[in-house]
């Protein structure tokens, strides 16, 4: 063990550890140009009897053998909680697909795959939260192992594993969402709009101009007032001052929203349904004339999916950083 140095308080060098009684004082007084790790190394050279251990932006107990786990525990659990939400949504979407009436069975097969992957994601997230040690899903571990066995480097195999894992979750859910076309049910639907649009709709007895996806909700929306309207529809009260009752026959033109992420989960919980494409709904006959794909809703699904994918890969990205003090 190196012999402790004698403290020399007579020099005016602010970067000399011997001029400070504690490491905290040294950090406060030393030049900002030094990283925390650099300061810790200098301190330990001069004060071997009072060593400190620096990791990223933190000082961890010198006795701790795994400083990474100590520092990142909170962050690891936050990301695992997001993974848990993602897995829960996968199971929910897959459950809907397995229960939906569908003649070909394709949705059932994809739904089963998504269900298994969702359960895999849930168990990995739960284990990560409990142990505070990042646990890979069985899917990721298997794909990583296969990639390594065919000659990929450990880093590349890891990346392939993560991308495959996230891809199955997001792609599978997306496939189920577009394949499982769950109808809006039998309850009366309403469409909220402003006064001028309502007058045009009532005059023409047609909802929509054929350029965008149509949205509707349960009849209870008609009673919503003030901020309840924003919470349930995402519209300002002035944009939803009029209620258009839709004929029951029109229900078959509307689909239930599949929850891919937080925004589509909100739509699902609020009872929002969307038309199976862009088009015009005849309010007299209830017949919907489709003119194209439901771009608006596909955009929401895409944004939700991208956000869920990014928070899933985030722990791997964040773990590869070297933060300055």
């Amino acid at each position, binding site marked *: 063990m190196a012999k402790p140095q004698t403290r020399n308080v007579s020099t005016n060098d602010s970067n000399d550890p011997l001029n400070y009684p504690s490491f905290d004082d040294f950090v406060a007084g030393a030049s900002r140009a030094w990283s925390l790790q650099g300061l810790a190394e200098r301190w330990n050279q001069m004060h071997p009897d009072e060593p400190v251990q620096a990791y990223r932006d933190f000082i961890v107990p010198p006795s701790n053998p795994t400083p990474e786990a100590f520092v990142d525990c909170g962050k690891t659990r936050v990301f695992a909680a997001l993974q848990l939400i993602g897995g829960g949504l996968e199971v929910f979407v897959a459950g809907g697909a397995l229960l939906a009436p569908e003649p070909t069975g394709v949705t059932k097969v994809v739904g089963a795959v998504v269900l298994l992957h969702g359960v895999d994601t849930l168990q990995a997230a739960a284990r990560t939260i409990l142990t505070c040690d990042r646990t890979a899903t069985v899917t990721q571990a298997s794909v990583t192992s296969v990639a390594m066995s065919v000659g990929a480097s450990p880093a590349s195999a890891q990346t392939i594993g993560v991308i495959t894992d996230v891809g199955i979750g997001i792609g599978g859910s997306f496939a189920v969402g577009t394949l499982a076309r769950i109808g809006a049910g039998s309850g009366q639907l309403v469409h909220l709009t402003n006064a001028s649009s309502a007058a045009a709709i009532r005059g023409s007895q047609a909802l929509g101009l054929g350029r965008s996806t149509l949205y509707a909700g349960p009849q209870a929306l008609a009673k919503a007032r003030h901020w309840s309207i924003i*919470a349930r529809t995402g519209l300002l009260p002035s944009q939803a001052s009029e209620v258009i009752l839709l004929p029951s026959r029109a229900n078959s033109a509307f689909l239930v929203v599949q929850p891919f992420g937080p925004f589509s989960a909100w739509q699902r919980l609020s009872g929002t349904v969307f038309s199976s494409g862009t088009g015009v709904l005849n309010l007299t006959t209830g017949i919907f004339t489709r003119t194209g794909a439901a771009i608006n809703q596909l955009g929401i699904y895409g944004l939700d999916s991208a*956000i869920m994918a990014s928070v899933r890969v985030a722990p791997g*990205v964040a773990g590869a950083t070297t933060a300055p003090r």
Partner: protein
Amino acid sequence: MRPERLVQFVAGLLLVGGLAVWALGGAHYLRSLGVWLWVGAFAVMCTPLILLLVERIWTRARRR
């Protein structure tokens, strides 16, 4: 602009911003900033859901 569109727009900006920072930041602390932009996008997308839950609790409390 509709509040729901505003939420999508802000979340989209944060997501793309996070992607750009992650791609351009290299193996440096900027990548960590990209991650937090993604988490911000997630949080923004959660605001309607949180508002809806608050509204439901509020409505039930008023009924009692």
